[in-house]
């Protein structure tokens, strides 16, 4: 056996190296009248697999074949030559550059759209660039979707000031939210985590609707949102943004990047915001938005070695935030002030560290390894009136991934293993909850892409989880292009997750409701896990009308819950959690039209309709605070930038939010509805040059406000008190301004 092996190995090693007679030569060119040697020229015998590459001094040695034979010289930017070789003589060959006109610079006048749709990828992905993020007032991740129809942004409550997001009619816990493909907003950070990524740090956002990849875990149900932060190697060296709004919010954003050597570069990102000013425009004695401050610092190191194929990122982040809300205190009008005052105080500390390394095989650039390791520690201590909520979440995530092909790059696959560890410690009023979740999984995803007509992704993962058991998660995506400029997509997949009922529903703490968990001996707070199937179709068509481009999309998605933790707000004074018995689903139909009206003016619009229903204990109802219809339109105008980059930009956004059902409460009763309403936002930017610009904007131009947003505000410690029922802006019109400065050096 051993001898055979030795023979085999020897054979394999020596066959290709068989000594052969060689022909020598040199390749040169004429550069400004001087002869220069050419390195890296492809030299090979025609119709054979025998070839070589010229060395630094232009010299080469090529294995001899049966003569006469044709020797081909090939080099990028030079004319390919074929020589007839009939003897063993030294070959001196001079190559000519390809005619200059072919190398002339091409000026492409088409600017890249700030929202890009894919026509060839199998998944329904919308990419939002950093340019698009500039249109939002001041943004952290939760606010960055206001000019984009793929994600719905709800209104911030008066207590925490956080805007929640929804996709396909379901709240963010059913989404997988990743940062550079590492799960980020989950567990303890589920409710407020999106506000911890400042917009100016974000290079781009990819929003995937429907079933996504299995490579990042089993948790995603309705879709995936991935953010890519600026990379130190390629982004601007210095960036500064200052922002101030009339509601008292101040922001500072700073990015510093530096290339340390040919392989290392480093970045330091800083974000700070505060609000000291107390606002009570609706005179209910409660602040309209919380005061407080946030410090957020991120440092990263990037390693790139093109020769060896190794790349890596080490990222560290620290966040500290305080928010205070509730009654105005001494500034409140006497007749409104309660004794004691209802105050909220929330302190959050978070530390993240992640290491990403990747190796791309030289030559076989289609084959690579990737390793992602991440750790985070999230700690939130909050008091809401007499209630308190404290959560600590330690999380570890590891993912090892291998990419390669079957035969050729039309057939690619990804496979690997994932390990996750989550430790939760919670204090809810006087009850403590502790648990550890551990899981390990194996995934495999195959992609077929025939380039122009269709592509297919088949993925699956097998996980073993200490509380969810062992289970299989299948996902499929298909893209078919029936004619040019179109894409028809289908997706289906399953996902499951543990419901962190308190962290995901923190608005319950600013109500006087009694909390009741109808335990069924499940693994999470006495409740079972959540599991749902999502499927949908989408059709995208681009068109040209009056020489201008546009595109039209229609899509329909449905999510069916097999298991769900139902959050039942349908009884006055009570909040119940129980496992679903019966049906629960969400349906979403979206029509989207984007059109370039002229070179400087473009329009985006979308109409969305939702049907989100659940079998509650009291019967089937539409999910509360879920508008049935939404309409969105955005008009974007920019002047043509001059050669210095000076430019005016203007945009106007319209939102119509249809009627929505309110949760049961003491004031409005059991099945009250809030009427639909319209909102307008606008922004004007003047760029003095490509490195300095100022902007002025207004959110909610028509000053629309929700009347008396806090129920029973005169008795905040009573069971009827409810500050969670927010379906429209509380503060009204908000004017803001800011500046941005960038330096490439």
């Amino acid at each position, binding site marked *: 056996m051993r001898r055979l092996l030795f023979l*085999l190995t020897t054979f394999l090693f020596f066959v290709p190296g068989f000594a052969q007679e060689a022909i020598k030569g040199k390749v040169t060119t004429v550069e400004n009248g001087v002869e220069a040697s050419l390195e890296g020229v492809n030299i090979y015998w025609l119709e054979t697999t025998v070839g070589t590459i010229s060395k630094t001094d232009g010299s080469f040695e090529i294995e001899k074949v049966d003569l006469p034979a044709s020797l081909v010289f090939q080099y990028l930017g030079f004319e390919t030559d074929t020589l007839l070789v009939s003897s063993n003589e030294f070959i001196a060959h001079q190559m000519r550059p390809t005619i200059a006109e072919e190398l002339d610079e091409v000026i492409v006048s088409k600017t890249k759209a700030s929202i890009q749709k894919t026509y060839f990828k199998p998944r329904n992905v919308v990419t939002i660039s950093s340019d698009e993020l500039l249109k939002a007032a001041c943004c952290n991740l939760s606010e960055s979707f206001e000019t984009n129809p793929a994600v719905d942004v709800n209104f911030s409550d008066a207590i925490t000031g956080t805007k929640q997001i929804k996709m396909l009619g379901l709240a963010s816990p059913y989404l997988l939210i990743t940062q550079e493909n590492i799960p980020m907003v989950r567990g303890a950070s589920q409710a407020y985590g999106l506000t911890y990524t400042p917009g100016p740090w974000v290079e781009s956002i990819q929003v995937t609707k429907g079933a996504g990849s299995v490579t990042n875990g089993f948790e995603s149900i309705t879709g995936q949102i991935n953010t890519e932060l600026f990379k130190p190697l390629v982004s601007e060296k210095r960036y500064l943004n200052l922002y101030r709004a009339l509601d008292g919010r101040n922001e500072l954003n700073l990015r510093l990047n530096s290339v340390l050597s040919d392989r290392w570069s480093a970045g330091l990102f800083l974000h700070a915001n505060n609000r000291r000013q107390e606002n009570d425009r609706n005179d209910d004695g409660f602040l309209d938005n919380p005061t407080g401050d946030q410090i957020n610092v991120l440092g990263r190191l990037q390693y790139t070695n093109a020769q060896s194929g190794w790349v890596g990122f080490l990222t560290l982040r620290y966040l500290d935030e305080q928010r205070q809300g509730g009654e105005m205190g001494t500034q409140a009008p006497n007749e409104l002030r309660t004794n004691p005052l209802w105050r909220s105080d929330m302190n959050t500390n978070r530390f993240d560290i992640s290491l990403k390394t990747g190796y791309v095989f030289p030559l076989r650039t289609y084959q690579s390894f990737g390793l992602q390791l991440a750790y985070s520690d999230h700690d939130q201590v909050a008091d809401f009136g007499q209630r308190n909520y404290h959560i600590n979440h330690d999380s570890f995530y590891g993912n090892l991934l291998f990419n390669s092909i079957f035969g050729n*790059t039309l057939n690619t696959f990804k496979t690997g293993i994932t390990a996750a560890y989550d430790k939760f410690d919670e204090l809810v009023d006087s009850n403590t909850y502790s648990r550890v979740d551990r899981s390990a999984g194996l995934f495999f995803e195959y992609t077929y892409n025939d380039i122009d007509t269709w592509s297919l992704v088949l993925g699956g993962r097998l996980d073993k989880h200490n509380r969810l058991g062992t289970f299989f998660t299948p996902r499929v995506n298909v893209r078919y292009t029936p004619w040019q400029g179109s894409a028809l997509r289908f997706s289906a997949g399953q996902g499951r997750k543990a419901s962190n009922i308190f962290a995901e529903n923190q608005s319950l703490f600013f109500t006087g409701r009694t909390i009741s968990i109808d335990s069924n001996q499940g693994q999470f707070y006495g409740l079972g896990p959540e599991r749902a199937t999502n499927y949908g179709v989408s059709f995208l068509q681009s068109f040209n009308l009056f020489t201008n481009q546009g595109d039209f999309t229609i899509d329909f998605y449905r999510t069916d819950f097999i298991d769900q933790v139902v959050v039942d707000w349908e009884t006055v004074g009570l909040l119940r959690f129980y496992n679903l018995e019966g049906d629960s689903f969400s349906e979403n139909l979206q029509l989207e039209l984007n059109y370039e009206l002229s070179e400087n003016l473009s329009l985006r619009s979308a109409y969305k309709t939702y049907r989100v229903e659940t079998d509650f204990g009291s019967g089937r109802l539409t999910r509360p605070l879920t508008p049935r219809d939404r309409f969105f339109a955005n008009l974007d105008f920019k002047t043509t930038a001059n050669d210095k980059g000076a430019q005016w930009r203007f945009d106007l956004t319209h939102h119509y939010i249809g009627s929505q059902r309110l949760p049961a409460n003491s004031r409005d009763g059991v099945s009250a509805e809030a009427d639909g309403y319209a909102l307008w936002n606008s922004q004007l930017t003047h760029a003095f040059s490509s490195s300095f610009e100022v902007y002025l904007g207004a959110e909610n131009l028509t000053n629309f406000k929700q009347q008396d947003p806090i129920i029973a505000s005169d008795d905040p410690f009573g069971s009827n008190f409810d500050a969670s029922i927010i379906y429209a802006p509380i503060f009204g019109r908000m004017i803001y301004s800011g500046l941005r400065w960038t330096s490439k050096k």
Partner: protein
Amino acid sequence: MRKIFFSLLTITFALSVQAQKSIEKSVIEVDGVCGMCKARIEKTSFKIKGVKSASWSTDTHQLTLIYDTSKASLDSIQKQIARVGHNTPLFKAPDEAYEALPMCCKYKTVEDH
């Protein structure tokens, strides 16, 4: 057991060294215009056994190929691409193949620079 493990390791290593040696990357200029050309050029390349990766750029007209030299040669790939209507450095497309291309792929008439 250990012996088998090491034997397998050696074979794998030997095979990968061998396989590594025969993999070649080449960039050649191929005439074409649009996305349809891209699909045709790439699909033709993929039909040849041993072609691992083929990617043609509509901007630069460069075809980047990764192929196994023990199964495919740059010549045979170019010959096939020319046969479906696209000029390559070594082979000119036959007139009838060029004539058969759809209007948007007529690179000889399109002034794209």
